């Protein structure tokens, strides 16, 4: 006589495929997933509490280390929230440079996503190809600010300093050869039978459910909802450049793969236009105090990071430090729906689903 029982198995927090310290409590019926419960907090550093004890201009390095792969967008988001709170205008050249760097960062973050996602599913070559391109971007970042990953390139009211000589030519060299490289990744994966078997129909979520779970970013756009903060509430120089928002209808892992690939192409398009239109002028707003005291009030500012919408809620009481600084993390919100996305799938699909949500635990746990 056979008797079947559900098996509870633990995955993580140390696991090569969980992309960080993520722990999943899986309840399995054989190989089929009944329930997935993520347990997070292994990378919780108390960033929100730390930010309450630092003056406004000292918080950006903390923000960099949230989503450490896409650090420029968080730096940008926090500083724009402070600029909104204090009513500071950013000069045009600084806004264009911020856009260029944010888009370079989006490409480098998507390259990490593609490389690691493909590696987890088994396609190891893609990882090397993606990181080869990523090295070019990291070289550009290092030439500008000295750091490769947690760059902290922006300051309140503008950017750190003007672009070094040769930087623009280096960026143009990169964006000239990048479209050919995207074709290489597509050639390896998009029509690959193994890739299609492992990603089509895996991790499906419908548009209504995705919106109700608070999902944003490529997760939402692959389910058919074309919501992108860069278009709806443009910031930096996004209203001066033309670009499309890729969406897909299928809502599964393959659709998200297509959306992010197309986003890389659109980022390259944005960078090209921004470089062509780059104006001269100041790179920082004048007359700013280091120990600034914005008026008492609160703002909530959102930017479109590579993983989704990153929100910054700042409350000021008129003092030198933020009274409350909350970071709305896209990975935190997107990960909450993993149970919905993987129910009924197989254990091997968990790895694909974690890869497709594209979480960074620093962002999730703060």
């Amino acid at each position: 006589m056979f008797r079947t029982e559900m098996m509870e198995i633990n995955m993580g927090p140390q696991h090569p495929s969980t992309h960080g310290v993520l722990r999943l409590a899986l309840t399995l019926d054989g190989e089929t997933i009944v329930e997935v419960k993520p347990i997070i907090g292994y990378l919780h550093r108390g960033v929100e509490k730390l930010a309450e004890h630092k003056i406004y201009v000292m918080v950006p390095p903390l923000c960099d280390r949230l989503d450490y792969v896409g650090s420029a967008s968080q730096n940008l988001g926090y500083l724009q929230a402070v600029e909104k709170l204090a009513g500071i205008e950013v000069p045009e050249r600084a806004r264009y440079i911020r856009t260029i760097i944010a888009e370079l960062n989006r490409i480098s973050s998507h390259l990490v996503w593609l490389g690691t996602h493909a590696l987890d599913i088994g396609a190891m070559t893609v990882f090397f190809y993606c990181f080869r391109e990523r090295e070019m971007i990291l070289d550009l970042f290092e030439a500008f600010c000295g750091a490769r990953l947690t760059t902290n390139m922006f300051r309140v009211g503008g950017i750190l300093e003007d672009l070094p000589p040769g930087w623009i030519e280096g960026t143009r060299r990169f964006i000239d050869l990048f479209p050919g490289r995207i074709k290489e990744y597509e050639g390896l994966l998009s029509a690959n039978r193994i890739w299609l078997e492992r990603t089509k129909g895996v991790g499906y979520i419908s548009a209504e459910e995705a919106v109700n779970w608070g999902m944003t970013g490529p997760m939402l756009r692959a389910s058919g909802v074309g919501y992108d903060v860069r278009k709806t509430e443009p910031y930096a120089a996004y209203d001066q450049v033309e670009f499309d928002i890729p969406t897909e209808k299928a809502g599964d892992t393959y659709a998200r793969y297509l959306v992010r690939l197309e986003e890389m192409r659109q980022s390259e398009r944005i960078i090209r236009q921004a470089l062509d239109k780059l104006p001269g002028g100041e790179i920082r707003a004048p007359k700013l105090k280091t120990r600034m005291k914005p008026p008492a009030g609160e703002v909530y500012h959102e930017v479109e990071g590579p993983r989704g919408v990153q929100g910054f809620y700042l409350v000021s009481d008129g003092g030198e430090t933020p009274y409350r600084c909350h970071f709305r993390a896209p990975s935190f919100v997107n990960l909450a729906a993993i149970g919905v996305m993987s129910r009924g799938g197989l254990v091997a699909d968990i790895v694909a689903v974690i890869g497709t949500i594209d979480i960074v635990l620093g962002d999730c746990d703060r």
Partner: protein
Amino acid sequence: MADTPETPQVPPEPPASAKPPVPAKPKLDPVEEKLRRPVESPALEALKSALPDAVIESGCYAGEVSVLVPKERIVEVLRFLHDDPRTAFDLLADQTAADYPKRDKRFDIVYHLYSIPRNHRLRVRVRVGDGEALASATAVYHAADWHEREIFDLFGVTFEGHPELKRILLPDEWEGHPLRKEYPLEGFPEQHMRLR
């Protein structure tokens, strides 16, 4: 001719309608004045017309509109804002809390709502005292699930009707709620986890 001694000039009686001089109001810095300028919000107007006694007060800063509602009616307000076609707030962008310990009801639970079809935002807040419970917003938005767990973990506010209210970022056995203002930044040494 000799000057006739003039009758001492008596200042005329101030007319009865004159008010005592008021000290001049300090003029707001032009930047701050622009930040505090009120903006129109069709969503707020829809809420006020449909549920007028659910709006305690509303404010505006940097072009963002926020509204304070009584804590007993939060689910009703969120349900209205979600369902009504004039507001159509389908996305709960963020739900968080702030601690104002000097106030009677120390916690501010703040909901940031965004409408994808209408592209407008609203900030809804409620005031909750220490030890009081608040109805969970998971009835309207699934996104509230983890946000409320985080608020419970870091502030200690309980949510009634939440499917599984337990700590999320800190270990389950942790005591204390770090984002409260009286919790020290360095923590308590005896609480640091020891490796066994």
